[in-house]
Each structure stands twice: as structure tokens, then as C-alpha cells.
């Protein structure tokens, strides 16, 4: 067991920042991001104990995180919860971007635009440009051909540019 713990500890260290960032961008709340991220790794650890020969632990953790975020939104009715301690956080990605652009920072504009994309598009952008994952790696995570991932990346960036240009 100490050996397994050591292995997973390494996986934890390598992925905690990425998973947290991935979740945070989607839920826009430190508290919720921490909850969902810790739940991700807890489930990951339980699964790892049962089968410590997971081929791609990173992809596995992302899958768990994605499912948890989906469940979170399903329960919360697609409404982003805003922490009262952070007045910079947005409430609803579907709100009129023009009205919000006056008070939003650049980062928040990008985030708002990003989470306005389809989930798969959000993910490929986050994985490729934030986590620096190569296209083949993303293809493995998504279970899609590399060509499809490249197309998705291209389309995602175009949509983002379109959304941001309207601000």
C-alpha cells in the first residue's frame, strides 16, 4: 500500500493544479472548485487502489472532473454560483456580454466567452492552450481522432474571437 500511495502522490502533484484550473474556469468559484477537485482526486485514488495500472491517469482524472462538473451543473440548473467574497465573478454566461463588458476585466471576458462554448470546445481550448497538452494526447482523452480535435480547436478559437469581438 505504501508503494501505491507513493505512485498516486506523484500523480496528485503532477495534476492538482491542472484539474483545479480546469474546474475553476467552469464553475468560477474557489470553494466549489476546491470541493470538486478534491472529490476528483478522492475518486481517482479509490479507483487507483482497485486498479493501479491506469494507462493515462491524467485523462482519467479529467474524465472524473468533467463528470463532476456536469453533475454540478445538472443539480444547480446551469446557473453559476457566485461567491459573495469575490465580486468579480460572473453569474450567468448567457447574459448580454455587451452590458457586462464595461465592468469585466479582460480575463473575465475571455472566461465568459470560453464557457459560452460547447463543452468539448471548452475542453480542447483548456487542454491545449492552458495545460499544453498535444493534440494526440487530447485525442486520447476525448476518444476522438486527432483530425477531429484539430478541427475542434480551430472552430473553438474562431467562436471565441467572434464572441470577444462583439464586446
Amino acid at each position: 500500500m505504501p508503494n501505491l500511495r507513493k505512485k498516486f502522490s506523484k500523480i496528485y502533484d503532477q495534476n492538482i493544479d491542472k484539474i483545479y484550473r480546469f474546474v475553476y474556469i467552469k464553475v468560477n468559484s474557489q470553494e466549489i472548485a476546491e470541493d470538486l477537485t478534491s472529490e476528483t482526486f478522492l475518486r481517482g485514488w479509490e479507483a487507483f487502489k482497485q486498479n493501479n495500472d491506469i494507462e493515462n491517469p491524467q485523462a482519467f482524472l479529467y474524465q472524473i472532473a468533467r463528470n463532476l462538473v456536469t453533475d454540478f451543473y445538472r443539480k444547480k440548473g446551469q446557473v453559476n454560483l457566485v461567491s459573495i467574497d469575490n465580486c468579480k465573478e460572473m453569474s450567468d454566461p448567457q447574459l448580454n456580454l455587451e452590458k457586462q463588458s464595461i465592468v469585466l476585466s479582460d480575463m473575465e471576458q475571455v472566461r465568459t466567452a470560453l464557457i459560452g462554448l460547447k463543452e468539448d470546445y471548452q475542453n480542447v481550448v483548456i487542454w491545449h492552450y492552458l495545460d499544453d497538452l498535444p493534440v494526440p494526447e487530447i485525442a486520447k482523452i476525448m476518444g476522438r481522432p486527432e483530425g477531429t480535435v484539430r478541427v475542434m480547436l480551430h472552430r473553438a478559437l474562431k467562436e471565441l474571437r467572434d464572441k470577444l469581438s462583439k464586446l
Partner: protein
Amino acid sequence: MITETDLIKRIQEFKQIQPRKDWVVLTKSRILGEDRAQPGQSFVFRFLQNKLALASVSTVLSVLILFGVFVISQSALPGDLLYSVKKTAERIQLAFVPDEEKPVRQLQFVTNRLEELARAAQTRQSRDLPLVYKEVEASVVQAAKALTAKASRTTRDSNLSKKVVVQAQKIEEKKEVVEQLLATQIETKELDKAVIPYYKTEVAREIKYWESRTLTEEQQQVLEEAKKLYEEGDYSQVLELLLNNQR
């Protein structure tokens, strides 16, 4: 419209989003905390394992503590808290000594008591001395009883006799020292009463043994000298002479 390059740069600003360091550490320890139990081990098994381990450690500690107390008690004097421990240790020693050796051990205890009296005379106030002196008297009585009991045996044991002679001499030497310290005589009449018959018996036995053997001229002279001393009643000298010159 924002260029693709600028957009990518802005997206990459999200790399600043990082979890709190303390939360990261805490979460890791919470998730990867030590297992409380190995799978398959029942609560009873784990409890017993711990109980056995605890019992083993307790036993070792108890032995170490007892040993420590024993060592410290060796310097205790009558009236000290650990003096009873010292006396108990002596009684235990006596219990494990063969019967024929018991007089020798009892004589050693007399020497111990005299040493205690000497230390008490040097370090304590005079009002504590009666207590120490009583212990000397008690040990003398015990030694005398043991010697009297052995004097009645029928078998010759020159090794034992030697040991008794040596211990008796030590007692005499220690007694002289204490008497000088206290400027008073130490009463050991009980012991003297027991020692003399013991010596007499042992001397008679030794002489008989020597007479039954073929002696060299030198040994014959020793025997003659021994018999003279025996007639004079100097039994301890006779015993010493014969035991030191025996074949």
C-alpha cells in the same frame, strides 16, 4: 477583431489560476492518509496485535524499571525508602542458593550490614544508628542459625569450609573498622557461638581426612602443627592451615 495570437495569449493568462498551497497539502494528506486497517484484518485481530505489542513493551519497561530500582537500592541504608527492596533482593538470592551454601551467604549479609553501619556512622546523625545496628544484630542471628544447622552435617566439604573461613575473616575485619569509627564494640556473640562449634566440627573432620591419607613429610608436619593448634582451641587457624595445604 482580436487576432488568434492575441486570443491565445489572453487564454494563457488563465495559467495564473492556481489552487491555494495549503489547500493542496491538506487535501493530499486527507486523501492519502494512512489506512487505519489492513484489508482482511478483523477488529479483534488488530486489537490483540496492539495488546500484545503493548504487553511486550510494558514487560520490557517493567524489567528495566525493576533493574534500575534494584541497582539504586544497593546503596540504601536502614530507614531509606529502597532498603526494603535491598533486603528483598537478598532474600531472593538466598532462596536460590543451595542449602550447603546458605551459611556462606548469610555471613556475606553480616558483612553487608557491617558496611551499612560503617556508612551510616560516617554520613548520618547518631539517632539513625540504632536502626542500622539492629539490622546487624538480626543478620548475625540468621548467620549463626545457618552455621549451627550446617555443623550437624556428616559430609566433608573443604570448599565450603574455605568459603566460611574467608567470610568469617571479612566479618572480623569489617567489625574492627566499624568499632574504630563508632568507638564502641559490636556485639557478635551469637555468631561467635555458632562459628566455634562449626569450626570445631570442620577441623575434626579435616584432621580425620588427613590422617586417612598417605602424607608427604611436609604434609605430616602441617598435620602435627594443626593438631597442636586444635588442642589450643584455635580452630579457625587449624582450618586455615589444613585447607590451604590440602592435596
